[in-house]
């Protein structure tokens, strides 16, 4: 379908509008808790800048200025890694096959960062980001026709509507008991190696400093052997139990 034919339809159907609503509420909740929004778009940097300026300097007078920064250096993963803290937000505007975005979205889980992925064309795999806001069109010109702009405009507008509902900005209480809790139990959390085991310590216990959604901790790496800085590992009960392969 060409761009002009698509103009006959509305751009946002029932599914996408529900995705946008859920994403906006999550965004508002995290901003309410002090999040900074990081934005990457390795293929279309101006979109990253547009998202950031939208939140920082709203076009509607009186709306809150919110912290948002476009990360447009040549290595957006490295930039997002050092910028982001647990509780932050990361939006990518990119196609599903953009390697840096695939990598950043995966690592964001270890950084404790909530992810949104805006794009068009073939979709990313299910679960690739917390929220996937997608335009199902195979036309490569979509990013230049205003439809991505519409998507993040809507996201911004809906997020600010959520601020008018302070009672809903508290995240729903986690279902949690001492015996069985998948959320906070130590079942295997994704971690990213910050400091690999040093030469002195590796002989003894192989302690590596690992970053997870809950902060930094020293973990035993005996089970997984050689680990390097920025490797992804699964952490369980104070030990790295698996090293994840870098995405193909």
């Amino acid at each position: 379908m060409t761009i002009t034919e698509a103009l006959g339809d509305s751009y946002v159907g029932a599914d996408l509008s529900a995705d946008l609503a859920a994403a906006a509420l999550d965004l508002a909740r995290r901003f309410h808790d002090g999040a900074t929004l990081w934005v990457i778009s390795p293929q279309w940097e101006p979109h990253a800048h547009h998202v950031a300026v939208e939140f920082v300097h709203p076009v509607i007078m009186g709306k809150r200025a919110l912290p948002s920064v476009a990360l447009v250096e040549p290595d957006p993963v490295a930039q997002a890694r050092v910028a982001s803290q647990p509780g932050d937000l990361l939006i990518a505007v990119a196609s599903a096959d953009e390697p840096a975005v695939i990598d950043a979205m995966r690592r964001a889980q270890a950084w404790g960062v909530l992810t949104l992925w805006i794009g068009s064309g073939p979709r990313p795999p299910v679960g690739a980001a917390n929220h996937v806001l997608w335009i199902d069109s195979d036309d490569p010109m979509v990013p230049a026709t205003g439809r991505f702009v519409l998507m993040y405009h809507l996201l911004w507008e809906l997020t600010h509507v959520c601020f008018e509902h302070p009672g809903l900005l508290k995240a729903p209480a986690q279902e949690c008991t001492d015996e069985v809790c998948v959320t906070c139990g130590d079942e295997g959390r994704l971690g990213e190696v910050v400091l690999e085991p040093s030469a002195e310590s590796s002989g003894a216990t192989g302690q590596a400093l690992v970053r997870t959604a809950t902060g930094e901790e020293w973990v035993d790496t005996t089970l997984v052997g050689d680990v390097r800085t920025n490797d992804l590992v699964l952490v369980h009960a104070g030990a790295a139990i698996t090293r994840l392969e870098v995405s193909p």
Partner: protein
Amino acid sequence: MTGNLTGHEPESTGFLYPFIESEETDATSLLDDLAASARAKATESARLQRESLDEYAAALTAAGTAMAERFLRGGRLYTLGNGGSSTDAATLASLFSRPARGRPVAAWSLAADEAVVTALGNDVGFELIFKRQIIAHARDRDVAIALSTSGNSEDLMTAITEANQRGVLTVGFSGHDGGRMAAAEDLDFCFTVHSQSIHRIQESHAMLGYRLWSVTQEHMARPLSEARA
């Protein structure tokens, strides 16, 4: 007695205000409202894009054709805008300079280089950040597209005047009632998107730019004899 009343008051009057928002706990209706709002705004965005394309069909063809002729003579495109419109200007420039398909032509956003923008802003004033670049870069075969949702930005207007004097083809994308752009004699083409929403105007600006690019591409793909006919 007074104490009794006071003690009961919060409980006994709470039913009068069941929807005090700080006490809202069920997000279902909010999410439904947000989704409905998203659909309505998206429908309006598409309608406005269609309306703008229809209104300016002939002028878009004329402007795109004139641009193509300049590109074929080695002309290049400068795009100008402030804030969100500067990012849309950058998207438009990269549509021309590295399109997903078709022929690339030289194009860049005059807001893209922070060294140049801050040097000019600091030394000669913000309203001259674009004009001074036009003086440095522009040749009589070039094209400038200025994007402003109000049509009133001083830095764009002074740059357009300068560009026009230097023989540059000048195109303005405006909004609301067109502002100063709608009345500017320095603009060869002015496309005003009739809306009060800055967001919806920007979305239509993108579509107008896309149409200009499409016309340009079509014209540049024709054999020379046909293009002249």
